[in-house]
């Protein structure tokens, strides 16, 4: 099976060096808007509306929902201000998702992960296993 947006975002989270990232949708959407323009891997997967005060992608929102249903990421109760990339989630991505990509695609994903860490990554202790 070929990859979809959920796999690419999963790959970015896998190569992220942070466990926590911001729950602020403005920061997340703006980051991936920049990544969409810079990396060919993203260009046929994401569309953004610029009608809102910040560029917003329905596909990205659905992917974040999916990753949360599947317990690859979680939000901290009760503040719901940050996401955590769960260790079980990373293990799953490494085993089932990363093999979908070729060398060039993995290179792009690793570069995107660095940008993602810089813009969205947060310090702090993991709150869920």
């Amino acid at each position, binding site marked *: *099976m*070929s990859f*979809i947006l*959920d*796999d690419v975002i999963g790959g970015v989270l896998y190569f992220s060096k942070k466990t926590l990232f911001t*729950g*602020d*949708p*403005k920061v997340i*959407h703006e980051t991936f808007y920049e990544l*969409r*323009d810079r990396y060919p891997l993203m*260009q*046929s*997967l*994401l*569309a*953004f*509306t*610029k*009608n*809102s*005060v910040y560029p*917003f*992608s*329905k*596909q990205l*929102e*659905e992917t974040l*929902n*999916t990753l*949360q*249903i*599947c*317990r*690859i990421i979680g*939000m901290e*109760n009760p*503040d*719901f*201000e940050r996401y955590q990339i769960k260790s*079980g*989630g990373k293990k*799953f991505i490494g085993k*089932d998702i990363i093999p979908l990509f070729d060398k060039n695609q993995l290179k792009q994903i690793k570069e995107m992960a660095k940008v993602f860490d810089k813009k969205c990554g947060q310090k702090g202790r993991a709150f869920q296993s």
Partner: protein
Amino acid sequence: MTKNVVKKEELSSRKEFEDRINDWVTVQLPPDLKQYKVKDRKVIHDSVWGSHVFQKHEIAVLDTPIIQRLRRISQTGLVYLTFPSATHTRFEHTLGVCNLVSRFVRTLNDRRPFNKGIIDCSTDKGEYAEMKMAAILHDCGHSFFSHASEDVYKWHPVMQEFLIDDHFAHCKPHEIISHYIVKSKRFRDFFDNCINKEYKAEINLDVVAEMIIGRHPDEKKTFQAEIINGPFDADKLDYIFRDSFFFGITLTMDTERLFYTLELDEESFDRPYLIVRSPVPLEQILFSKMMLYTSIYHHQKVRASESMLKGLCEYIKHNNLKVSGRTLEHPVDFLYLTDEQVLNPNASDDKTFKRLVNNILDRVLLHRGVVICKDTVNNFEDCFEYKLVKLSRSSPNDLLKLRSDIFYAMKEKDCILQEILIDIPQLPSLREAAQTYTSVSLEQTPELINKIFPVDGWLRAYGSRKWRGHVFCPESMQKEVDKAARKVLGKMNIKVNDRSPLYCHMN
């Protein structure tokens, strides 16, 4: 470079799409269509919002076959099979949206000094007239059973191309179709001659078409389009209120307070932006939306009946059947059919088609063969849901393969493949929380709702705890499907346990 150079192949499939829409509009509005002249304004009474005055040219458009067909399209698909009073149609919803648009405009204008309203309120030309026309036409692109059929044709390559085009970024497939109906040559000819000329109106259809997809040619007037298609638009307010009313679900939504606190902020952003000065009504609306999803739209019988409709469409397509004279190859084919034309056993001579249709009509609904959730899967720590959710998000062919594997693993088969259906629900979009600004006082800079209170995080957690995937099948096949599905899903490392039959109410 930002998005998408439209490729040559995409251009030709869009041209074909536009031509097909124009052909459909020509069938609905033939050149010799006789329309009586509307002599006066009319008051139409609505059970949810009360009475509303429609102008002559608006009545003339409401009276066209394009809008009248919405009386034969259920607003909530097949929900009425589970919630019997949910019999409201797209037509009433359209009238309700018009009423609310009027209320939005009155509210915004009332905030301004006399005679210096924000929106030009002439009834037959200019901004307000265009907004009302966009409200009338916003759902003209729906086909039978509304979102149930949309879930089928959205997978067509031409719709998939639109959905990754920034211009249509947050649009649903039916909104794109409505947009192109309004822009079609035949509709423009009809509107120019039979509406603008006849009633001395001056409505710009380009503006109307853009508003339907939440845009405006003048960026400074985008807030007007957002009243039609935005985070907290008239469409959403009407369907949440109307659906809960007809479902018989009591929800708390203080629309009076919402309108009381609605304002246009012309200073804090780079363009005028609608904000609501109190987060309370917005939070109520979001909770209400979530309640509707968990109680109604994601109810297992509602999902079963909609899966049956998808199975019927698949059967029609795979067997090249014609239903009421139409195939279902292209998204525009769906426009030709309304609810009663599809759920008509005489629409085709095929015996299996008749049986599938009669099962829906007589409420012989599919049952749960397998329930997939944290409680019914042993190895839940392995993120099992991902594989299934991915299948449902990549294309229907991927789910079809899994269904076929389950079907052919069944030792006894007293049904067809189109009666073994996998339902993987998605959480509702909660973009409202991430895109709507509010503030708790006049002095405070507006902030996004979810910065003041992270409603979307709470709601997403609530939704994911209640998430259930299903394999639906005829009641007589429950045990066979349970055995076969466990075997097939086991090969995907999804280990269904003995609690699944309990969830399915199997003996």
